[in-house]
């Protein structure tokens, strides 16, 4: 059974003292994450022994993560906690006040088509000096919805935590349930999981690149990316019956077989690769696009070691962290042995876009490798009966970074669940990146270069 350590909420000065001690002890991200979790009165759940790193963490809702009644209650993770940890390295943080400084509220209804999140920008003329995020507008209480529910209905909720990465969520959930109950998964389903996860990554990254191109005014490129995304979505609909691949991955095996459209995958991969090379290559030669990305939203160096940036935010800061390599699941172990995570040491909007283009190419390589080794059998296996009880952990690399599920299962029911999404870990990077002498015109570009999900932050 997991060991639960609950740390009560402390006063702000105690938080600082804690960071002081820990900052001296270790500059390593995990230690600071421990500290931050403790200081914020959250529950730190030690993972049960399993594959991968021994001290893997899952953040559970602590005594202060109560249901919020209004959007005005500030969300712990963003408003105070992680930036506080980072500011500790840069010196104490004070609210910015002074002549000519204005508070510019933006949101929760903002942008063209976007999720509800409020920014408070402190600006001097055009320059952004301080940014605060106000989240909590769209808390749906997914963790509460899962606790006590049947495994199948909890899975339906998991697929709707972030609507654009349902495979990652369903897979992490399934891995956790399989870990808890000791279920085995047929080899064909393992392969098919990899296909679905990589398809989802390609689709998600292409969509992000479209938003980024649109934010820089490169509408022709945005149209090409969007058209490519639509091609992928239509293939996904033909493959699984759902444009976003919902309803397939489940604990112990597929809930639904993949259709015969799988045989068209190699042709699709070749076509997508050609299109990606064409559009990304043309953008690499478009100065109006590059000028706006280079140097925009650069993460400060002192943030690197302090916080566990994950996914393309971490990789663009030179951190080679990727769950597919660190703790392989599905069929990744054999397929990725001669590859390395895409990483670059340029933590700005360009670096984040560059990493995503690289990851798209890498995912296409993985997809063609799976298909060369013989396409996964299309037949679905009846998932084994779920009996017994236990605690399990599931970790996957979602399109936006590491995603962890921790579940306690008893038979067909879920006793408790906790989720750490990549967006939760990466949202604190957005204010940090915005405050580095950027101007308001850069705001949409930096926002799009992160393209994090608010639904996975508010949970």
């Amino acid at each position, binding site marked *: 059974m997991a060991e639960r350590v609950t740390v009560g909420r402390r006063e702000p000065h105690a938080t600082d003292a804690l960071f002081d001690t820990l900052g001296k002890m270790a500059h390593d991200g995990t230690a600071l994450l421990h500290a931050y979790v403790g200081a914020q009165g959250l529950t730190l759940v030690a993972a049960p022994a399993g594959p991968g790193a021994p001290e893997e963490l899952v953040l559970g809702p602590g005594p202060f993560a109560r249901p919020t*009644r209004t959007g005005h209650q500030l969300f712990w993770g963003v408003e105070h906690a992680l930036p506080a940890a980072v500011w500790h390295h840069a010196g104490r943080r004070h609210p910015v006040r002074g002549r000519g400084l204005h508070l510019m509220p933006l949101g929760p209804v903002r942008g063209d088509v976007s999720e509800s999140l409020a920014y408070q920008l402190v600006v001097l003329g055009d320059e952004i000096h301080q940014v605060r995020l106000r989240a909590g507008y769209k808390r749906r209480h997914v963790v509460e919805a899962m606790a006590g529910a049947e495994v199948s209905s909890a899975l339906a909720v998991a697929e*709707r935590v972030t609507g654009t990465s349902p495979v990652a969520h369903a897979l992490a959930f399934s891995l956790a349930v399989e870990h808890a109950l000791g279920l085995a998964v047929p080899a064909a389903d393992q392969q098919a999981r990899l296909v679905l996860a990589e398809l989802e990554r390609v689709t998600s990254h292409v969509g992000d690149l479209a938003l980024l191109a649109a934010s820089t005014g490169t509408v022709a490129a945005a149209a090409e990316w*969007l058209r490519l995304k639509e091609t992928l979505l239509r293939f996904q609909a033909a493959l699984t019956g759902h444009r976003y691949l919902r309803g397939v991955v489940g604990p112990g095996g597929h809930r639904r077989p993949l259709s015969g459209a799988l045989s068209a995958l190699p042709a699709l991969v070749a076509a997508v690769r050609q299109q990606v090379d064409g559009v990304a290559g043309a953008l690499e030669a478009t100065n109006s696009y590059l000028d706006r990305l280079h140097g925009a939203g650069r993460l400060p160096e002192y943030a690197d070691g302090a916080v566990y940036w994950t996914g393309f935010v971490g990789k663009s800061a030179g951190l080679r962290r990727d769950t597919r390599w660190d703790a392989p699941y599905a069929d990744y172990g054999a397929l990725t042995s001669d590859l390395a995570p895409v990483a670059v040491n340029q933590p700005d909007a360009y670096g984040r876009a560059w990493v995503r283009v690289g990851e798209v190419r890498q995912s296409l390589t993985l997809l063609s490798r799976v298909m060369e080794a013989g396409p996964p059998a299309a037949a679905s296996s009846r998932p084994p009966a779920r009996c017994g009880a236990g605690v399990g952990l599931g970790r996957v690399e979602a399109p936006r970074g590491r995603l962890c599920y921790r579940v306690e299962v008893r038979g067909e029911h879920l006793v408790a669940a906790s989720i750490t999404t990549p967006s939760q870990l990466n949202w604190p990077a957005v204010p940090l990146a915005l405050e580095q002498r950027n101007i308001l015109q850069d705001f949409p570009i930096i926002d799009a270069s992160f393209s994090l999900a608010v639904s996975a932050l508010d949970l």
Partner: protein
Amino acid sequence: MFYRRWLMHYLKRPVVTSFPGRSDPDAPARGPLDVTANALFRQSLTLRQLDGGSCNGCEAEIQLLASPVYDLSRFGFAVSPSPRHADLLLVTGVITEAMVPVIRTAYDAMPEPRLVVAVGACATEGGGVFHGLPGVVGRLDAIVPVAARIPGCPPSPNDLLAGLLAAVGRPAPTAVAR
């Protein structure tokens, strides 16, 4: 240089979907719509999307309306960043308590005549799988009058186009470029 690729596209056939003039063989069929027909807007129409607690799936599909495949602007539709310039409000997601005042404010800011369209299973079926959770209101018509409901989780861009045209009482055009 992107201009070269851009110019080359002029030599190719348009990629716009044949929907709704003809059926679109590649896209999933749409579900039934629930529409109170309004013949209020004959010409251009400005949309504003409002997220009342969605999973981002509905937003992803609404964003695709601007793609060359669906090309919202061929019907005179445009997306506005502000509710003050919008004729039609697309509301997605379970409606959370925190979003109730925001939805009301946005609706009040819209000029008359105005329409509200509920998008997705969350907004049309009382929260979908999130029904009854703390903080989930689920009922959009208790806050603002709803003119049309577009079901689906998420509704495909074709469903959205059909729903939008029906909501403003426009017949589906019979001939669409293909």
